[in-house]
């Protein structure tokens, strides 16, 4: 399973948004949900509530099975009811892995896609841990292969980024 963290804090996210932006929050219901709840339905709902409380205009939340499947992302751009929503949107906040981010940039070239995800490698989920743990890190993280897995809070701390939802 792909392991992803957040590059930015909520404050940094807000600094990239304007009050007249029409915001779509986008997520998958797969790997990122297991990444301490970085994505998935709950993460989208809580971020929408936080942004609205701070005066931002969230026009839609879109939950997709897998954002790394290009065709599924493309369908949202060409078929109603989502086609009109995405035409109207000015910014998309991806709660995905880097693959999802790349697909969004490709399918919606005219929109601002906030650079949220940092994908750090592959990992194992277990209900015993209650979370996904990083076992096969990308070398650029400076972390080593760890058979038992590294908790994501620890990975985020070492890399100076954030784990879990906004």
């Amino acid at each position, binding site marked *: 399973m792909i392991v992803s963290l957040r590059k930015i804090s909520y404050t940094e996210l807000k600094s990239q948004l304007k009050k007249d932006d029409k915001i779509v929050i986008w997520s998958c219901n797969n790997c990122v949900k297991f990444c301490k709840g970085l994505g998935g339905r709950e993460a989208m709902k809580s971020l929408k509530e936080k942004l609205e409380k701070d005066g931002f205009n969230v026009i839609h939340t879109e939950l997709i099975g897998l954002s790394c499947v*290009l065709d599924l992302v493309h369908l949202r751009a060409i078929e109603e009811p989502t086609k009109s929503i995405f035409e109207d949107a000015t910014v998309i906040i991806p709660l995905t892995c*880097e*693959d999802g981010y*790349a697909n969004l940039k490709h399918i919606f070239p005219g929109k601002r896609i906030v650079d949220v995800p940092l994908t750090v490698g*592959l*990992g*194992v*989920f*277990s209900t015993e841990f209650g979370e996904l743990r990083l076992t096969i890190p*990308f070398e650029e993280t400076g972390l080593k292969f760890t058979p038992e897995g590294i908790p994501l809070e620890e990975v985020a701390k070492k890399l100076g980024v954030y784990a879990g939802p906004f």
Partner: protein
Amino acid sequence: MGAVTQRLPLEEIEAKLAKTDRIAIISCNTCVRFCGTGGLERMEELASQLRRDGFTVVDELLLTAACIRDYTERARLSKSINKVIALTCDAGWTSIKQALPGVEVIKANETLGIMIVSPSKGVLKLMKAFEKYKKREGDEFGLLTGEPMKKRVLNLEVSE
């Protein structure tokens, strides 16, 4: 979706096995199936090849995703096995190692990095690679076959 994998040569796998071993093969029905390196057909093919070469394959187990350890922990494998072949990505391999600590777990695939998939174009693309495969970032492979594509069909930016 997950990891891009490529098959290791059969000789490399067999070199880690003994004729006296009692072997189980575990595979997934997601990423590796998309890459043509796992799934039911590939697992049966590997089991047949090994049996033909005189090895004893006792169990073949197809999981949804071996990287979810709960699945591997609940696997009802024969108690007599002493080696498991992970026909998975490296995350599946670590998950099986965690779930079956007393058994040697052998990789049948190498993991290149992470991918995006386009079923309509019949292709998957390596988007972010491990160091060893960094030069192959952006390479494309046939969906379900893993065959390298001669020409790139997805014009997407890969990570830097």
